[in-house]
């Protein structure tokens, strides 16, 4: 994958911004669509960002298949609501370097805000690619 140092720095800044600004956001990972972490930040020590990158890749791909099979079109977002929070996965549409943004938020987060932040981050990343 061909990301310049500058692009990486910018992506890292976007990831940092997610944790700084988004209430309840405890982790954010930007990865290639085939599951390799590009940039990540987390509050929790127990979360494995490489694993989350690979899992987001699989879930994103399965989301795409769901859209195809149901005839509803491309997958915009996958959200998993767990007992104590949410994981939101959004694709960064880009022909040459498609990526995925995953955000993990605890129960203090407002789901709508997390989705908004994820989409904004994905849009910002697709601009700089």
């Amino acid at each position, binding site marked *: 994958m061909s990301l310049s140092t500058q692009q990486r720095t910018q992506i890292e800044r976007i990831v940092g911004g997610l944790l700084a600004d988004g209430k309840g956001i405890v982790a954010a990972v930007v990865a290639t669509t085939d599951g390799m972490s590009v940039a990540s930040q987390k509050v929790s020590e127990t979360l494995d960002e490489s694993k989350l990158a690979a899992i987001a890749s699989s*879930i994103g791909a399965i989301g795409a298949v769901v859209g195809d099979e149901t005839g509803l079109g491309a997958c915009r977002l996958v959200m998993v609501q767990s007992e104590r929070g949410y994981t939101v996965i959004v694709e960064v549409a880009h022909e040459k370097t498609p990526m995925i943004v995953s955000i993990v938020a605890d129960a203090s987060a407002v789901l709508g805000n997390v989705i908004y932040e994820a989409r904004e981050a994905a849009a910002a990343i697709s601009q700089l690619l």
Partner: protein
Amino acid sequence: LSDQKIVFTGTMGAGKTTAIGAISEIEPIVTDVKNSDPTLGKDKTTVGFDYGEFTLENADKVRLYGTPGQERFAFMWRIIAKGALGLIVLIDNSRPNPVADFKIYLNGFADLIGTNLPLVVGVGRYETHPTPSLDTFTTELERFNIIAPVVAVDVRKRSDVLLLVNLLLTQLENLE
């Protein structure tokens, strides 16, 4: 057994998606995305699962699942392997260390293989890359206390994929 599930796993680029496509009666479901690993020399790679269907002579339906190859998707291996009746491991013999590749899957599916799950090994690109030999894989299987057929295959050929499936089903019948 009216509904059987067979899982194709093995090295990235060994042809899991191709194998399922070669025998599936439905348009296979594929979850491949752009590959960003330059060492793999592939445009696309499976990150979720492949799915196809195949009907046996006795009208039983076989569900064919393919796993992602890379070890970072090992969590997907466990999900896909649930309820599987047999495992087909595909190896690409043109890679630097096919036996090391092979061990990744033997270890990754150890829980399943330990329950006497039937296994078949298909070695690809064997004609152009005859080393390591098929016997080398058999010896490796013995180290894991597994007895399973090892055959050279070209998974682009429907007949070769059917051979793998038939070898697997034969083992299943012997178990019953």
